[in-house]
């Protein structure tokens, strides 16, 4: 009897344990720090009364982006008891002094392990980021296709625009300007168009990148940045478009200056 009373007293006087919930769950369920909730392993089953001790902000973690699951952090022993897991865990992490200590620990753990295996964190990271590597490969492939397409368009359009100047080129040659002078002049025009086009392209890309981030951050409710423009990327894009533009302009101009002026005039 006394024992029962003591147990009852203990339950009343022992404060409920705390949990942490993620911000999405808190928003969806209208939870605030200090709220009492019941957590159970099955719907409708009796569970434990706990207090919301913290609300976790969404991290800029790519692996969380498309997951719609709600996260709850509990004390390990409480969760083990709740889901009747016994003295088991799904994984544990080990911090070591340095890399040689890591190797020693790995060997020791794997030698003794039964039914589980130890991995360096770096390898786990590599395995779990496979999804993003696939996406990266896909993006790279799309990027290559886009570059090839852009090169063809650029070549086509610059060839057309330079050919439009055939009469001007013919007239310049007829009045005595040398091939190289005419060539330089046409290539310079192509260069100006390429530079201006590249500058405009960078601006458009920068704007589009901002739009992409704003949209997807709102869509997936994440602080993760989806698009980042680095100096390297800008340099690569500008260099490529300049090279392509100049090459296209030079190619078209060479064709024109090599054609006899009267032929250009249609005679």
């Amino acid at each position, binding site marked *: 009897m006394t024992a029962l009373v003591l147990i009852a007293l203990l339950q009343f006087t022992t404060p409920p344990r705390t949990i942490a919930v993620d911000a999405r769950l808190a928003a969806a369920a209208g939870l605030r720090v200090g709220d009492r909730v019941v957590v159970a392993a099955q*719907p409708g089953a009796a569970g434990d009364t706990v207090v919301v001790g913290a609300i976790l902000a969404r991290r800029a973690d790519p692996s969380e982006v498309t997951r719609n699951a709600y996260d709850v952090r509990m004390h390990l022993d409480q969760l083990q008891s709740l889901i*009747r897991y016994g003295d088991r865990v799904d994984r544990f992490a080990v911090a070591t002094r340095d890399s040689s200590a890591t190797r020693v620990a790995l060997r020791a753990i794997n030698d003794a392990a039964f039914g589980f295996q130890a991995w360096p964190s770096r390898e786990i990271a590599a395995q779990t980021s496979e999804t993003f590597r696939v996406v990266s490969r896909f993006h790279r*492939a*799309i990027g290559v296709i886009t570059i090839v397409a852009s090169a*063809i368009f650029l070549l*086509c359009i610059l060839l057309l625009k330079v050919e439009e100047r055939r009469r001007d080129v013919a007239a310049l040659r007829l009045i005595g300007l040398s091939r190289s002078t005419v060539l330089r002049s046409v290539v310079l025009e192509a260069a100006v168009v390429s530079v201006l086009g590249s500058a405009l392209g960078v601006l458009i890309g920068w704007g589009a990148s901002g739009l992409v981030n704003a949209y997807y951050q709102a*869509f997936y409710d994440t602080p993760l940045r989806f698009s980042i423009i680095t100096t390297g990327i800008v340099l690569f894009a500008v260099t490529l478009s300049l090279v392509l533009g100049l090459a296209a302009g030079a190619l078209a101009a060479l064709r024109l200056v090599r054609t006899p002026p009267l032929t250009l005039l249609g005679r």
Partner: protein
Amino acid sequence: MRFTLALATLGRHRGRTILAILGVAVASAMLLDMVMLSSGLRASFRDLLLSRGFQLRLSPKGTLPFDTDATIGGAAAMVSTLRALPDVVAVSPVLGGQLHIPREHGVITGFALGVEPRVQGDYELLSGHDPRRPDEMVANDDLLRAAGARPGDTLTAAAGYDAQLRALAGTRRLVITGRARFLYLSAGQPAAALPLSTLQNMRGADATDAVSLIMVRLRDDAIVEAARRRIQSALPRVEVNSTSEAMARVDQRLSYFRQLSFILGAVSLVVGFLLVTTLVTVSVNERLGEIAVMRALGVSRVHVVEQVVLESGAIVLGGAVLGLALGLVTARYLNSILSSFPGLPAAIDFFLFQPRAVWAALGLLALCGVAASVYPAWRAAVHPVAGALREEAVA
């Protein structure tokens, strides 16, 4: 005559025409790929879900099938309840788990499905027969290869590890009765299917009367939504998803690809439009005199426009045909990249050729190309004849 003139004019500037066709081909290839991407994944996933005719899937509350290790308890009673419903044709309970097969060189671990073979919808038998007795199983080629086994062999398999005893737990000797292809598993994943009760016994107490998923086939597609609602209200402990809901959830997770496909598709159309407009504008500007002569000879404005539009139409047609071939090749390549997503069922294709959608997209490109040429063609057709002839004479 107009067709002859159009082709002859294009042939006169072969290099320019070829480049333009290439440009349109690349635009149409990109457009084709994006159309295939936007509709392909959805259609492919839907086909997969409905491949065995099961329209509803019941999973633990708040989860999607096999999203977590959670199970549905009291499965037997639930299955009986479902089978008693008049609209239900078949109910297939499925339990998932791991199967460990000790071999000389180590332990092979594969994915195990506990099923009722006569109603199962998870695998296709390639050879042999379904498990008819509790100690039988079918396996896929990946498992057979990893275990060095063949149909007819008997393997020792376990459902788990007992870390305290340092021994495999839930061990059984199982006879391989057939080879199967598992519909919902990713490529290269070793897997086996055995009777549900066998796997439940092997897994022990935590899987007693438990399943991971229950698939339901209804007698009529038209009653799916009504049946879903009825079952959900009768069984609040589970999540009841129809195919369309499952697809909606997958859509949400993979919405990025649909959006990407829309954006890139739109960009392809715009670029194709710009290319054709530029080409036609330059082409007619060069031929203003020629066009003025045609008008002087008595060719009407409409026919001049038709002539020019015919030329751009020929380029767009040539580009579209080439683009179709190019697009199919690049789609295969891109599909092979995306199909390596970890955990994705091998049967899922991101890029699916759906004739109606593809022809619609190419038709749209053709329309765009033609529309791109109408304005410059019209401008050329209404250019004052005498003025153009005078400019030609001066030039």
